[in-house]
């Protein structure tokens, strides 16, 4: 069949050629997008490829996080700030799970749960305690903060963060103080700030680990403090309330608590921050 008639190109062939060009263009675009994605997967913190950012921007526009993490943690050096927590599955860190969900409301947090080879048979609710896997989790650079929880056979909860400058931090109380500072500044009054820390110590050392007698004494102290102010350290909800609430819940003494404590438990629950902790205790 002759393709050319009188030097003129058949209009059907012309249309076919145009279609082929269009398909080739789309293929190149796709190839560039896949290469961009591959680059961000293999080098997690590489700059975002332009072709990828244009196709993903529509999904990520729901995030409008603040970036005062630079102020709290020093200048961002490019890599994702990953908070790695080793916790024993026999003692789930309720306080940290509550603070994690508060961090997620505030920042773009890449949350992952792992099981270390030292433990087996971790219950499913512990594996899903940080919520469903994020749809963009392959692109680490899109997040402000990493939260990696590893269920491990450790005698004491441990946090590793910025290991070049910081020693590993032991104990749920110290880690809770750290996470809370990323959410809200401590009270500026030295006495109130220290009161918060003092309640946090009481929660972890006397409520969570103490004897029945110690627990009863703490409940009395809570009751008298809550008779004077709505929250434990005054008129503001602070880490003191988060820690004491979680430890009262964990020690199972909520139902036997005196009146002011009961009222305060209801106030805490009304805030709606504590569902991650309640879920694990069911």
């Amino acid at each position, binding site marked *: 069949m002759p393709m050319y008639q009188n030097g003129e190109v058949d209009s059907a062939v012309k249309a076919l050629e145009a279609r082929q060009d269009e398909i080739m263009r789309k293929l190149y675009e796709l190839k560039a997008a896949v290469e961009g994605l591959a680059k961000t997967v293999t080098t997690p913190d590489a700059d975002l490829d332009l072709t990828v950012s244009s196709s993903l921007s529509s999904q990520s526009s729901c995030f409008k996080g603040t970036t005062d993490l630079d102020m*709290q*943690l*020093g200048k961002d050096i490019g890599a994702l700030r990953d908070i790695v927590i080793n916790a024993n599955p026999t003692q789930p860190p309720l306080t940290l799970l509550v603070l994690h969900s508060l961090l997620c409301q505030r920042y773009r947090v890449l949350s992952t749960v792992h099981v270390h080879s030292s433990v087996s048979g971790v219950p499913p609710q512990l594996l899903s305690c940080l919520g469903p896997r994020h749809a963009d989790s392959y692109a680490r650079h899109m997040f402000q903060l990493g939260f990696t929880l590893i269920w491990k056979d450790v005698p004491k909860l441990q946090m590793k*963060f*910025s290991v070049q*400058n*910081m*020693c590993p*931090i*032991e*104990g749920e*109380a*110290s*880690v809770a*103080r*750290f996470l809370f*500072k*990323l959410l809200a500044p401590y009270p500026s009054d*030295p*006495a*109130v*700030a*220290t*009161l918060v*820390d*003092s309640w946090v*110590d009481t929660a972890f*050392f006397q409520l969570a680990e103490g004897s029945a007698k110690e627990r009863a004494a703490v409940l009395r102290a809570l009751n008298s403090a809550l008779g*004077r102010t709505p929250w434990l350290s005054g008129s503001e909800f602070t880490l003191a309330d988060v820690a004491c609430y979680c430890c009262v819940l964990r020690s199972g003494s909520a139902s036997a608590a005196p009146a002011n404590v009961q009222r305060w438990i209801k106030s805490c629950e009304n805030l709606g921050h504590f569902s991650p902790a309640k879920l694990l205790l069911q």
Partner: protein
Amino acid sequence: MSLNLTINSSSPPLGALLTAEHVKSSVPVSVEEGKDTRLLVSDSIQFNDSNSICRYLARVAPALGLYGASVMEQTEVDHWLEFSARRLSERPGAMAALAALDKALSLRTFLVGHGLTLADLTVWAALKGHGLWPDPDRSLPHLDRWFSFLSSQVPFTAVGSKYLSKRAPPSRSSMDE
């Protein structure tokens, strides 16, 4: 502002006393002996445990930087405050804690950052108060260097001689191994 710290003289809160020595040029703190350890801050707020007293004193004298310079340093200080109150005070396990301490000090002059913090004060006080160090039977070179470096300085020698000389040295047989 003047603060009044009451201490139980039969078990003096060494960490709190050391911190009081350090802050006394910026915040006057008077110390008197009594039945229980207590720092009265206001009508409704008082602190009864050594770590809370240390935290409060460090916060009212922020220029000294005893609580660290950043959120990360503060977190390290919190870690060592708990370490001194818990791991160095629990009889079984105190020896493992010493080894951990030695390891942490291997690349550091001070426990946190580049200057003295509550971490150094409270850990030193716990070692001294429980008679855990110096220990002639163990060789922990980094702990030894750090401990003698601090022990030779004025606030440490003052507190050590003032509050520990009256007490009998702890008997070694009661120690765990």
